[in-house]
Every structure is written in structure tokens, then in C-alpha cells.
């Protein structure tokens, strides 16, 4: 019951969604629309689980005065302000909620990711070595694309017998041809993999997503 019933329930829902693709008529389309609407609500509710875990974790840290508990107070305060502000101001637009997003959350989120520019520079310096022919190919393609897609590289060109050979053209060709073939190969492989996994889920062969003891 605890394991089979959810799988059977899932199978019925999954089959409705599968069949409507081939039979776009009622009652399949009606059920399909309803499932899509329900799905949006269920997905929204999943975040609540994550938030409860986060608040629990930091709340316990503060309660027990664990190491660095003061930082957990910062997490909880930041959370409380953002969660309560829209209720007080009765909108999600502007006010403290909007101000905190524009001037606290957004600049920090952008900066966190901007740090990657420094790390990738350090990695380029220390790790990217042409240790084999294939590694050298990777580096050459990388350098060509890197230079060929910015204005300074676009100006690099030579003229041979009336023809212009530019880094920009070479870079475009790499992206359009070998890169495209590589990404397409991966894409088709992933597509087949996703299809196989979805089929296994539908048939109840793959059930790890239900939890440990399922």
C-alpha cells in the first residue's frame, strides 16, 4: 500500500499525460489541463519544505548557541524581514520587499557569481595544459572562440589572394560545425536517456525518487 499505491497513482496520471499527446480530445485534454494546473500548485508547495528545513537548521543553531550562531541570527532576520514585508505592505511590488531585492539580494547574488571570473582566471593559469593532442585541440578551440567573439579578435584577419581569413570567421565556423555536431551528439544522447528514464518511472521500474525505503 505504502509503495504500490503511489506508483499506481503515478502510472495513471502519467499515462493520461502520455496519451493526450496522441489523442488531443476530451476527456484526455480535460484531464491534461487539470493535471498541469495541479502540478503548478504542487511544485510551489515543495519550496515550503526547503524553507522549513532552512529555518529549523538555523533556529536550532541559535537556540543551542552553536559555533557561529550569530550568523544564523542574520539569516533568520533577513528571512523574517522579506517574508513579513509583503504582508505588511499588502503587495509584492516596491516597499521594503522591493528595496531589499534591488539593493541587498540582487547586488550580492550578482557579485557571488562575478567571483567566478577570478577563479576561472586562476584555473586558466594553473590547470589548462596541452598535455595531449586532444587537450591541445580543446585549448585552441577555446582560444579561437574567446578571441574571435570579441571586438579585438574580430579585427584580426589576414588577406590571401583576395580572400579574407579572420579569427571571427574561424570562430563562427567552430561554433557552427564541430561544436554544433558535439552538442547535437550530446543532445540526442541526453534525449534518449531522458526518454528511457521517464519510461522507467512511468512503469514503476525506477522508484528511487519516492524516497529511501520505496
Amino acid at each position, binding site marked *: 500500500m505504502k509503495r504500490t499505491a503511489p506508483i499506481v497513482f503515478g502510472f495513471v496520471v502519467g499515462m493520461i499525460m502520455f496519451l493526450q499527446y496522441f489523442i488531443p480530445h476530451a476527456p484526455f485534454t480535460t484531464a491534461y489541463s487539470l493535471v498541469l494546473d495541479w502540478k503548478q500548485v504542487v511544485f510551489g508547495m515543495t519550496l515550503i519544505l526547503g524553507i522549513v528545513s532552512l529555518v529549523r537548521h538555523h533556529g536550532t543553531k541559535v537556540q543551542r548557541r552553536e559555533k557561529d550562531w550569530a550568523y544564523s541570527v542574520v539569516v533568520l532576520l533577513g528571512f523574517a524581514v522579506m517574508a513579513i514585508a509583503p504582508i505588511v505592505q499588502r503587495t509584492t511590488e516596491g516597499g521594503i520587499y522591493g528595496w531589499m531585492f534591488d539593493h541587498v539580494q540582487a547586488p550580492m*547574488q550578482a557579485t557571488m557569481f562575478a567571483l567566478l571570473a577570478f577563479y576561472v582566471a586562476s584555473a586558466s593559469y594553473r590547470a589548462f595544459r596541452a598535455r595531449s593532442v586532444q587537450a591541445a585541440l580543446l585549448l585552441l578551440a577555446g582560444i579561437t572562440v574567446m578571441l574571435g567573439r570579441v571586438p579585438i579578435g574580430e579585427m584580426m584577419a589576414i588577406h590571401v589572394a583576395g580572400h579574407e581569413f579572420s579569427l571571427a570567421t574561424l570562430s563562427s565556423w567552430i561554433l557552427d560545425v564541430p561544436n554544433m555536431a558535439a552538442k547535437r551528439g550530446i*543532445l540526442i544522447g541526453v534525449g534518449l536517456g531522458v526518454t528511457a528514464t521517464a519510461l522507467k518511472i512511468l512503469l514503476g521500474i525506477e522508484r528511487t525518487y519516492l524516497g529511501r525505503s520505496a
Partner: protein
Amino acid sequence: MDRFLAFLERLMSIDRRWLYLAVAIAVAVPVLRPIGLPVKVSNETRDFFAQLEALHEGDVILFSFDYEADTNAELDPMSRVIWDYCFSRGIRIVALTLYPGGVGIAENIMNEAAEKYGKEYGVDYVFLGFNADWSGTMLRMGESFRLTYPAEQYGKATTEIPLLDDADKYADVPLLVSIASSSYAEYWAIWAGGKFGQKIVTGNTAVQAVLVYPYYQAGQILGFLGGLKGAAELETLTDLPGDATRGMDSQSTGHGLMVLFILLGNLAYLAQKIRQRRAV
């Protein structure tokens, strides 16, 4: 020669913070003192622009802000130039986001453009807002925008939004623009394009752009902008220069420095190999 090889080897043990400083200088100086290097337009951007250009006054397009603040440096310039271009030509926009953090980003871009061109909310544009479950949203919108979003971002019933009288499903909008930091752009092509035949153009982060080529070549995505360079190219085509064009000089110096780092690193590696061979 030996001393030179030893010097190259020593370069490898340089403190990482010196590298960071070099990156900061290479990127910051052109931000302060731009040179104004010319921007060449790629085929992908030309095709993207052709789709925008083909729109007529009064057309309604669907615009999805599929990104958050982490990639706003790359994608905000794209959104900004598209909104400016559409509003300047009297094209109306139904906007949404599939990221919760996209709400604040979208509001800033929309408000700025609406104020600049004197556009009215609900008539010239509307913000349906964030909807959890991206794939469900993309599929449901093929049937009805109003049923997918019973209320817009600020809680007003979508039945009261006049703009949606003219645009309530994909079939009513000639173009869908997704500015995305993730594979959402490709999923628009799979769900909205594959199932409903929606015409799609996308703006992607540089990291994501390389993955769009198969969709572009297959005609599932009709044109796309790749990273800040793509945004700068669109700014050039629309003659609306902005942050992307201004950022191109820093992009050039930054890339130049990275190439230098790779070359230096490989030279040091070579030096190390030569010295090891000599020692044997």
C-alpha cells in the same frame, strides 16, 4: 636559458591574489576609459533581429524573463534593448518569468521602458509574473494565458486585463522571446515550439549559448543572442547602444588576459618538462 626556464617555472607559484588583481585591472580600466571598439554582428543575432523587425505595430509578443540577478550583467542589456525597440515601434508585450528572482529584475526593466515610452500597464504591456513549475506553465499557456495565470503578478484577475483580449494563447502571438540563463530557452522550443508551433527567439548567457546551436540549425529557435556580445550586436543593429556596447572593451581586454594566462601557464609547463628531461 636555464635561468629563463627556472623563471618560467617560478611563475607558476605566484600567489593567486596577484592574478586576481590583474583580472580586476584588465576589466576595470576599460569600464572607466572605454575605447569604443567596433562590434561585428553575427548571423545568429541578424536572424534574431529579423524576427523583431518583421513585427508590426500593435502586434503582441510574449516575453519571458528567465533569469535572476546572478546573470543580469549578461541578460539585462538584452531585455532592455528589446523592450526599448518594441515600445518604440508600438509593439505590445505580455511578460512573465519562470524564476522567482526574475520578478524584481523584470519590474525594473519594464517600469523603466514604460516610463520612457509612456506605455500603459494592462493595455500596452502586462506582467503575468512568476509561476512555479516551468514545464507545466509552458504547456498550459498553449491553451490559455488567462487560465495559466488566473491573476497577474499583482493579484489582479487576468480577465480584467484588456491586452489579453488580443493575446490569450501562443497562436495569438507572432513571436516568443525568452531571455534565459538556463536551458529554459531550449525548453520553450521543446514545449511551445514543438507542440504548438510557436516561433521562438532567445537570448542566452554565454555558457548556455553554445548549447543552442543544434536548435538554431534545426530551425527550432529562429535566432539567438549569445552573451554580452550578442546583446552588443543587437544594440548595434537597433541603434540603441547601452551597457553591452560599453562593456565590449572590457570583454576584449579580459579575454586577452585569459589567453595570456593560458599561454604563460603552458610555457611554464613546457619549461618544467624540459628541465625534468635534462635532470634525468
